[in-house]
């Protein structure tokens, strides 16, 4: 009996370490790389731990490219598109769950179809549209598409939370003189705050990570977002890996903080669609 339990404990430890190493190893490795010098890098055989750890690469990362500017651009684009997406998505989710809408299933299907739309097919005409509207190299050129890209998942996540709120609460509020819209903002949204929040995190991470549209719509360096800006650290043929690693570490810190704080919520939001489908 004792041996059996010991065995079981070993399996649990082995599992935890495997999953954690698989997930963390790349980040750990670039962190170690970021602490190395270029001369240490070309040593053969390669060193695992830095011989003489240095923060110089982090300093260079801030001066070689306007990385704080990239980060600011990403932040502006991601937060504004998230706000737009959550607002529009909440209205739509309420309409779809609470009001007896005709063609409800059709509308849901259209939303799902949009979620599966190939971005590259959208990129080509969207580039033309944004050029005609003179919106290239403006935040709006990314805010609008990002809001739409996350709209389906946000609407579905919020709709599933709205459904769990007893309609009696709204009815009571409306008897007290609230309008439907007031009931939505004063009762339904506050009560489903976790759902709204989950939707917001998903939209934010999606926008923060997006590359193709960011590459296309913003060709001025000062308007580049972080995901594209990171690729500017490499030369035509030269890859200064310690410098690139330092920039990568700086770039993933915000996203790491977000997922570390909100891990349970993110997992719940990501999987809610999958399990129900």
């Amino acid at each position: 009996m004792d041996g059996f339990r010991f065995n079981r404990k070993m399996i649990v430890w082995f599992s935890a370490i495997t999953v954690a190493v698989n997930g963390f190893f790349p980040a750990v490795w670039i962190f170690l790389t970021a602490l190395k010098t270029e001369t240490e890098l070309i040593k053969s055989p390669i060193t695992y731990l830095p011989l003489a750890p240095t923060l110089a690469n982090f300093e260079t990362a801030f001066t070689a490219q306007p990385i704080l500017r990239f980060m600011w651009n990403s932040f502006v684009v991601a937060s504004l598109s998230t706000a737009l997406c959550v607002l529009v998505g909440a209205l739509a989710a309420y309409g779809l769950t609470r009001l007896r809408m005709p063609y409800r299933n059709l509308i849901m299907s259209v939303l799902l179809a949009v979620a599966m739309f190939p971005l590259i097919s959208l990129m080509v005409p969207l580039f033309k549209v944004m050029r005609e509207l003179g919106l290239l190299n403006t935040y709006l050129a990314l805010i609008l598409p990002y809001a739409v890209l996350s709209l389906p998942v946000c609407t579905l996540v919020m709709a599933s939370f709205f459904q769990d709120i007893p309609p009696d609460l709204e009815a009571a509020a409306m008897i007290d003189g609230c309008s439907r819209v007031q009931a939505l903002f004063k009762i339904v949204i506050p009560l489903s705050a976790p759902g709204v929040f989950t939707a917001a995190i998903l939209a934010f991470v999606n926008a923060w990570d997006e590359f193709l549209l960011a590459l296309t719509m913003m060709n001025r360096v000062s308007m580049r977002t972080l995901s594209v800006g990171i690729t500017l650290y490499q030369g035509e043929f030269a890859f200064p890996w310690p410098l690139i690693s330092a920039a990568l570490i700086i770039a993933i810190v915000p996203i790491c903080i977000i997922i570390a704080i909100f891990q349970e919520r993110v997992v719940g939001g990501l999987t809610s669609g999958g399990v129900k489908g």
Partner: protein
Amino acid sequence: MTDAVISTSKDMSERKLGTLLLLPAAALLLLVVVYPITTLFFTSLHAVDNANPRAGEQWVGLANYFRAFDDDRFWHSLFQTVLYVVVTVPGALLVGLGLALLANKPFTVKWPVRLGLLLPWALPLVFCGLIFRWFFEYETGIVNDVLVRVGFEPLQWLSSPTLATIAICITIIWKASSFMALMLLAGLQSIPKSLYEAAEVDGASKWQQFVEITLPMLRPAIFVALIFRTITAIQTFDIPYAMTGGGPGDATETLAMYIHKTTLDFLDFGYGSALATLMFVLSLVLTTGYLKYTRRSASRSGED
């Protein structure tokens, strides 16, 4: 009688309000999706005549589509895309299933495992591509270091078409498997424990339990995960872009990368639009298949 009157008039106003609430979403979709897509098809029927470039884009009918038919680079990029789909979708499923089974244990401290699955998901694809490019470097990369240490020759990962394709597939699988694992883990946790207890009583082995209980119960989650993965894999762009830039030559170039180059580097909007339309049709077929499946399974669970 009065009740009915009230409820119909309430229905009407609710309908109006519902439409109103859906309007902002509809407006966004019109501007960002519907309108651009209609111009996409229109543009794909045009091309710049090389003999008279001043005239701008001229109507050429389906010429761009015929051109794609004869374009080796298009067929190669399509083949490469399908290759990534065929290799990485089952690959990510297997690795993801493995990770999900490992993660489905009673851990006292949950965050290392949860973050170990979340970090690869949250990492931007380009960053993944860059990091793994660094892993696969010939002289200084860790992959060759490990190969040499266990007694193999170092490999020119990124300058051979075959090896570069393998390296890209490994990267995509690493990146995609964690999301797969999260979806499957949720599926695993929704399987009632009593099923396993009953099987245990009946003397079923762990393997029998896995095949007879776990896999059938996971089927819906696996299916949804596969569909999502396939639709994302068709659009593969960021990882090969960061790892090889499509090289060596055009060997690892995907359809999405070719479309991007055609439109933004060669500024050939007509042809690029035709290729983008073909891509659109390809994914539309898959999406319809997916919607049909979900609707069927929804009505099936409704019957239960």
